[in-house]
């Protein structure tokens, strides 16, 4: 009888976890990885932005403005509750280890001139993504890919395009905005360009292209350690 109760309680706890796992697997794993282990999105072992269940539910429901975390509008009220409970249960997922040295990584960051295109804590110039909280947004594996093969890990909002006007010089830059009739770019000199598409002879989307030079060698581990240490304001 006691054994039966034990199995029953195990089954009940598994069952209790399952409802949120399904919608999580379908909607959240592409960024947060299986079981919240991290990837393009952060590892979910520490929920820095959601101290309470209510805050977590709100965050899943409304997304995080200014980040790639979208609104969970597709989740029903029940799914929202279930996913919240499931994400809360992921607290024991171990974060991926990093082997590099964050201090050396910081030196490499300065030496390589990363601050000419990235902002950390208000320092640097904004052309590429801001890195102030990058350690709480990306996994080490994702950062490795982004450093070694920047074109393979272009984040949302940083598509490179080349616009060739019918008259005038071609402009290459990051797409800032685009609709059916117009497109706006920011070039590497940090100048905005605005085109009406009817004035363009050609508009190329340079998919899997990044203006960032690839990194190799020992620096990469150290840079990853430095970037992972950037977790923004507490």
């Amino acid at each position, binding site marked *: 009888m006691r054994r039966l109760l034990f199995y029953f309680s195990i089954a009940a706890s598994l069952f209790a976890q399952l409802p949120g796992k399904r919608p999580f697997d379908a909607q959240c794993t592409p960024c947060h990885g299986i079981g919240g282990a991290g990837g393009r999105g952060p590892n979910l072992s520490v929920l820095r932005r959601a101290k309470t269940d209510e805050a977590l539910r709100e965050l899943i429901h409304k997304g995080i403005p200014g980040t790639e975390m979208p609104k969970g509008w597709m989740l029903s009220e029940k799914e929202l509750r279930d996913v919240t409970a499931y994400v809360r249960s992921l607290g024991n997922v171990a974060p991926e280890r990093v082997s590099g040295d964050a201090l050396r990584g910081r030196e490499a960051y300065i030496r390589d001139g990363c601050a000419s295109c990235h902002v950390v804590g208000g320092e640097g*110039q904004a052309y590429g993504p801001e890195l102030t909280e990058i350690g709480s947004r990306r996994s080490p594996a994702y950062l490795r890919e982004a450093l070694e093969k920047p074109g393979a890990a272009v984040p949302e909002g940083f598509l490179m395009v080349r616009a060739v006007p019918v008259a005038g010089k071609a402009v290459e830059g990051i797409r800032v905005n685009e609709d059916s*009739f117009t497109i*706006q770019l*920011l070039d590497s*000199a940090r*100048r*905005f360009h*605005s085109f*009406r598409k009817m004035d363009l002879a050609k508009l190329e989307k340079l998919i899997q292209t990044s203006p960032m030079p690839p990194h190799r060698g020992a620096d990469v581990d150290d840079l990853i350690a430095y970037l992972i240490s950037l977790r923004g304001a507490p």
Partner: protein
Amino acid sequence: MRIAAFFLLLATLLPAQVTYERLRAGELERGNWLTYSGNYAGHRFSPLTEMTPANAPAIHAIWAYQSHNPGEVETSPVVVDGVMYITEPPSTVVALDVATGRPLWRWERPMPPDLKTIGFGRWNRGVAVLGDMVYVGTLDSKLAALDARSGALRWEVPVADPNLGHCITAAPLAIGGKIIVGIAGGEAGIRGFIDAYDAKTGKRLWRFWTIPGPGEPGNKSWAGDSWQHGGAPTWLTGTYDPELNLIYWGTGNPGPDFNDDERAGDNLYSCSLAALDADTGKLRWHFQFTPHDMHDWDSTQIPVLAQATVRGTKRKVVALANRNAFYYLLDRATGEFLLGTPFAKQTWAKGLNDKGRPIVIPGTDATEQGVLVWPSLQGATNWFSPSYDAAAQRFYLSVREMSAYYFKSDAHYKPLGFFAGGGERVLDGDKAWGALSGIFACNRHHGRACWQRREGWSSAVQTKVTSMPLTLRTGNRSGNFKRAARSAPIRWPSLTAAGNAWRLPPLV
């Protein structure tokens, strides 16, 4: 030659920076609008000549931008080299492509859910630009510096405690290396101030308290401890004379607004214009328009800097059309009163004495039964900017002729309480909202109207002068954009902005 080529290359590669030198000459740049008032002198004047009375009827919208946030929009757009920076309620900054209206970036900071604005709405009136940064004051009283190309936060510093009713609604003013900031919260019993911050680091460089502390000159103009919660906020952007290195900034009403039981005295420096040394924040001079104000007539209106011949002498002057219905001319270097004349109906003062001090008509202070006084609490003019055409020496302002019953009630200070000690009730019927408002032009500094155009009531008529004889206005409660011309109205299809009451000044 090679060096020259290098510098030429460098010049084409560097993004355009908004240097202090460019700001000093802001009115000369075609197609740009670099400061809140267009130039340091507060002229809100456009040098463009493309728009004329002849072609105005053909003007039509080429793009529209829909604010993401509901509420009243009071931003004064700033335009730099093809990018327009606007703010949306509560403190969101958006960079728009001028050619298409498409957003380039937006910066939004969530406000504390329990944030209170006491005596005003969740407004923001715009940004300042300097170098490659955009500066904005937030409703929860922080000053933020953003990267002009991406909106990335460079730094953010607390200016004051929002839990005591401080808010920032005014656009900051950028001068050489400094960002000047004013504060709102007069009805919350704050003690007003004007701050300067290092444009690069956000470090506070100086603070001028608009209410002097114990032992300082002027503190005795407040009975007892009333100075501590006396208001005198600084919620509109001031102007700047680079030659005299003086900042001109208006101050708000004393608190509690309608109950003076505890605040006997002139209540310095409320309802005043303060001229501050830009390097130190020290008061060079002040002029108090309404000593011991009893009607909530803030004197935060834009101080317009001009040259004028007064009684045969050419002088640098500052002109200000006050909420109390008088137009003033002061000497810019000394604060000497030169001229003062009413520009709208007023029933509270017999006139001004030779020092510019009002001769108050007895029995016009708020009472428990209510006292009918012109102008109303909203004032004969208010936050909406005037314009100044330097060539024609004409001062344009939006005027409202309204009266109100002023009531007095109890006033007890408590943090985040409404510390007004009364209020107003406007007249019923056609003498109240609606009948009498419009744009007036004052002739050659003497404050006499040379023309006026009366329109239906509009909550915030804005003027801005183009170099052609066109005066533009925007904004009524339904969000319609309209325009008024000097002589006769020109038919121009209204643009309606859905969802927001747009109360921003037009740009040309």
